[in-house]
């Protein structure tokens, strides 16, 4: 991606600031992006599986392995939380990317109900740090 974000009043871009953050509600009926910064889209890939694509690369100079991705979750306590696992992926034998991608990440956030069905996690949030000061 080459599109540079337009800065607005209140924006602060530096090496020591988060380049993107996200609050996403996954609970059926209320799902969707609640608020975000520097995020282009959230891909719903299946039950409890989401991919977050940033508006630009978080790391400068195409250094794909320099990102810091942080995730957390909120869960209704009677439901068991199965996992909150995030990873960057390589895709397809025709175009394998063996490095960490610097503009998107996938997260699994799932919980169980009394009947042991696995459903979407109730809520998750993300922050991404990188040294791209031209985000």
């Amino acid at each position: 991606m080459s599109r540079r974000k337009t800065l607005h009043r209140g924006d602060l871009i530096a090496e020591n600031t988060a380049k993107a953050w996200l609050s996403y509600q996954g609970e059926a009926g209320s799902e969707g992006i609640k608020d975000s910064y520097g995020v282009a889209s959230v891909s719903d890939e299946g039950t409890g599986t989401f991919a977050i694509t940033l508006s630009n690369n978080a790391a400068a100079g195409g250094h794909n392995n320099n990102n810091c991705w942080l995730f957390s979750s909120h869960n209704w306590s009677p439901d068991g939380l199965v996992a909150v696992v995030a990873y960057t992926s390589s895709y397809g034998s025709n175009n394998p990317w063996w490095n960490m991608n610097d503009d998107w990440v996938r997260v699994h956030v799932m919980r169980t109900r009394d009947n042991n069905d696995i459903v979407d996690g109730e809520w998750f949030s993300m922050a991404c740090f990188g040294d791209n000061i031209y985000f």
Partner: protein
Amino acid sequence: MVFDGVFWRQHLFLKTMIDTSKVLVYNNEFGTVTVVHPAPKHEGTIEDIKAGIGTDRAIDGVIHIVDRSEVPKDRSFRNAWTYTP
């Protein structure tokens, strides 16, 4: 007209918000469909997001732009979703 804070944020600083009534849909590697929701604060277009994702994540290389209203509300059988244009 009242020139309140919302007016100035929207007009003076010229933030262009994306149309969130559209989503991207494609068949994914998990055997179901991916629904891509644009972030409301993203400054760009759904076509920009489509180009940014590329075709690597779509197993058949095709990404469709559809109305968000076509996405089912019931997620009970989310992994069984399919999409036919």
